[in-house]
């Protein structure tokens, strides 16, 4: 009578300890969340994935930015705005009582405060000096686990890959010249996207060439004066919306702009915005927009 329970308890202890040690690696055991957990997050990229897999989202930061910069997929109507991404309203978070806070490495300095409200899981995706795509896939799978929607997450990844495959043959007309994606910051400066950014990842997967020959920072963009566009030769230049209102009039009168090879060749087009720090829905949006792009005669 005395030996048996002890033995069982020892075995139980061992297996318990093992499970505990493996918890961070084994998917299902680690979440410890309720059936349909309610998430809050400051990051629009994570929100894109959560919405796409149908997870329950109660709060998001910077909601007014969504329709201008993130756009897709449509944000559910009842999601509460949490304020800015770097300072989410803590009292409001406390009142919302989320099950999990999906954070980014930029918020590590307030992690101890967020943890008072709910468990925090941080998702390093961008600014690691590498392509964000593998991190996006990992995050998608992890969000699937956390929300109990593994199948939806797998399907999101598969659908994205299928879209890349299906779109690749449709884009031959974009392979005659390299492409350059940029935002106008003001009338004299642009932000040009390249390696370390999801925009580069999409170009790579579609066998398209990026025409920006120089370095980009950890987030995958370079800030430059317009005169530096001399370096891109005769690429297609795709200008992301929104463009400051005085840019076009000013460029029209600028001899430098007018003499740039791609302007001379008429290879400048506006392009609807794609969230540069986005996740898979941003990639599919960009792919679809590329296939729909009207190039006209040039």
């Amino acid at each position: 009578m005395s030996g048996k329970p002890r033995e069982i308890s020892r075995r139980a202890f061992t297996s318990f300890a093992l499970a505990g040690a493996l918890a961070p690696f084994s998917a299902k055991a680690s979440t410890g969340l309720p059936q349909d957990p309610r998430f809050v997050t400051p990051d629009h990229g994570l929100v894109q994935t959560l919405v796409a897999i149908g997870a329950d989202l109660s709060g998001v930061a910077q909601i007014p930015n969504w329709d201008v910069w993130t756009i897709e997929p449509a944000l559910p109507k009842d999601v509460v705005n949490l304020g800015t991404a770097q300072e989410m309203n803590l009292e409001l978070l406390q009142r919302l009582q989320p099950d999990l806070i999906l954070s980014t490495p930029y918020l590590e300095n307030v992690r101890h405060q967020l943890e008072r409200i709910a468990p925090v899981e941080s998702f390093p995706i961008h600014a690691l000096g590498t392509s964000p795509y593998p991190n996006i896939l990992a995050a998608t799978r992890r969000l699937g686990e956390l929300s109990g929607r593994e199948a939806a997450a797998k399907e999101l990844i598969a659908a994205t890959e299928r879209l890349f495959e299906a779109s690749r043959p449709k884009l031959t007309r974009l392979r005659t010249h390299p492409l350059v994606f940029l935002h106008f910051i003001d009338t004299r400066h642009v932000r040009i996207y390249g390696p370390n950014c999801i925009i580069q990842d999409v170009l790579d997967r579609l066998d398209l060439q990026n025409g920006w020959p120089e370095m980009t920072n950890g987030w995958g963009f370079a800030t430059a004066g317009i005169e530096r566009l001399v370096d891109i030769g005769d690429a297609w230049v795709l200008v992301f919306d929104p463009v400051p209102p005085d840019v076009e009039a000013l460029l029209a009168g600028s001899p430098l702009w007018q003499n740039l090879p791609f302007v001379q060749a008429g290879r400048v087009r506006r392009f609807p915005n794609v969230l540069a720090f986005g996740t898979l829905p941003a990639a599919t949006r960009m792919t679809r927009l590329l296939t729909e792009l009207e190039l006209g005669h040039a």
Partner: protein
Amino acid sequence: MLSESRQIQLWAVLFATLALIAIASNLGPSVTDLGIARLTGTPAPQDIDAVLMRFSLLPRLAMAPLCGAALGMAGALFQQVLRNPLASPSTLGVEAGSGLAIALAILFLPALLGWSRDLVSLAGAVFASGIVFFLSRKFAFRPIAVVLSGLIVGFYLSALSSTFILLNDYQLSGMFIWGSGSLSQQDWRPFRDLLPRVAICALAAGLLVRPMTALQLDETARGLGLRIAAIRAAGLGIAVALTAFTVSAVGVIGFLGLAAPAIARAVGARSFRSRLFLASLVGACLLTATDQSLQMLSKVAGMFLPAGAVTAVLGAPVLFLLIRKLPVSPGAATGAAVLSLARRPLVRVLGPVCILLLCLFLIATFIGRDESGHWVLDLGASLDPLLVWRLPRSIAAAAAGALLSIAGVILQRLLRNPMASPEVLGVNAGAGMGLLVVLLCVTAPGHFALTSGAAIGALTALGLLIFSIRKSSLSGNRALMAGVALATFLFALLSVVTATGDPRALLLLTWMAGSTYTADMTSAAILMGVTLVILPGLPLLARQIDLLSVGSDLARAAGARVERIQLIALTLAGLLTAVSSLGIGALSFIGLIAPQIARHAGLQRCFPQIAGAAMIGASLMVAADFLGRTIYFPWQLPAGLLSALIGGPILMIVLLCKKKA
């Protein structure tokens, strides 16, 4: 010994040579390659190198000295009229006005920018300086009045635009570049617009040289029958115009306006005429040399480097080295001497302020907003989970407000300059620098790493400051210049990073705006503890500082150990600033404004002013913190910014009411 004009000629040649070397090594090779034929006549579209040279590099080469000269000249004018070596184009809020106008236009009326970005920015500048002129006209443009109202208007407007930037960082990302002054050009038009404007201003400044020189003599000038107010207004008007035109063309290149006249004075330009000339030249050469070197550097580094901020990074150490050569000039006109101030007993001021502070504390603890944004009174069980968010913030805000105000009184008394706020010590710039280094070097730094970084930065800056003062005894404007040079250097480095679009910069921007967001029980306890520890020593220190108020020579004759008192007081001010910046971020406007409110409320002696300012500062910060987290719910506005938005008008009302009485 060379004569003044001879010496100035020598320096002028030296500066010009420096700029020419930079130009030759950057543009020389490509200009020779291109040859005259390809640089003149109609540009051939295929000849992209020639196009680049003609429509980007050459206009940029023309723009740099023009902007530099305009800002140097503006700085010399400001410093002459305001008789304050710290006066610069940013003193009058010109840049802040421009920035706010552009930010507002981007957010609410983009069509206005489409019409003319230039004029929007100019209108903002005119609006800001208009308010300053309106306020200081009542005081006959006396330096102290102009400086105070300029600082307040400037702080107020830039607090507003920082708030907009924090809330709309995507739309307003261009403001970062604007704020760090990029000279990048694609056209001759901006230069063609700016040249005649600057030329007219320079001509007008030339006409004012004689009467403005007489202004130096102040009271004597009145005897000579000069219309002092009119001359001051004219001088300020020209300086404002020069700044506004430059800012609307290239953005903020703030540091030149401060440094160029200081460098001119340091290398021996004694008369106003030579200072005006040399400051313009120094400004032109410094900016050109910097911008040319930058172009070479960014070709190699592949990084975007804005000229305005980099000029400050390079120029600040030069200023630092030249400080010892600065003549111990008449310094700033002091407050009490110019504005006759009433006296009131401490109790009559402190009583109401204490009651106010208590009320504010209660409001901040019990009132909030719920999920749907309705105002609610939280009591009992619903208050419990919220207390952990509300109390530490209120306590930290109150303590930091008190500490900064005490530091502010000490500094303003010690340095006898109403512009001396805790940030002129460069201590919180040091903390910011520490933060920046940690942010850039550590992946995903946590609370502890960031706080330690900030602490190390603050202490290093404080050490540097004490070292530089010990070496060249504390003579008002020298100490100030050392602090300002340090602060400028560090903040310029920060703005280089923000201009590259690095998203981590937003974290720093929030911190610089004075955010109580990260305050928790630990930091609140530390801030409160420091406040309680220093309280008993304050009456003693105040008596010592009062001893110095007669001037250091007289005080020394009366047996005061002047240097020791100065060193202790300054170290204390630095420590207080450091502690509060670790707790609630960097914006120390409260340290400028609370002492002024206390003084204008009638607290003239040092200890009453310290006590009054501490309570006023604490009340302001508690109010600012409460409003910051509720008024624009769910967005949080940094308490530091709101303290400027609340405190500025209060001080203005105090100033104006007294004038009427």
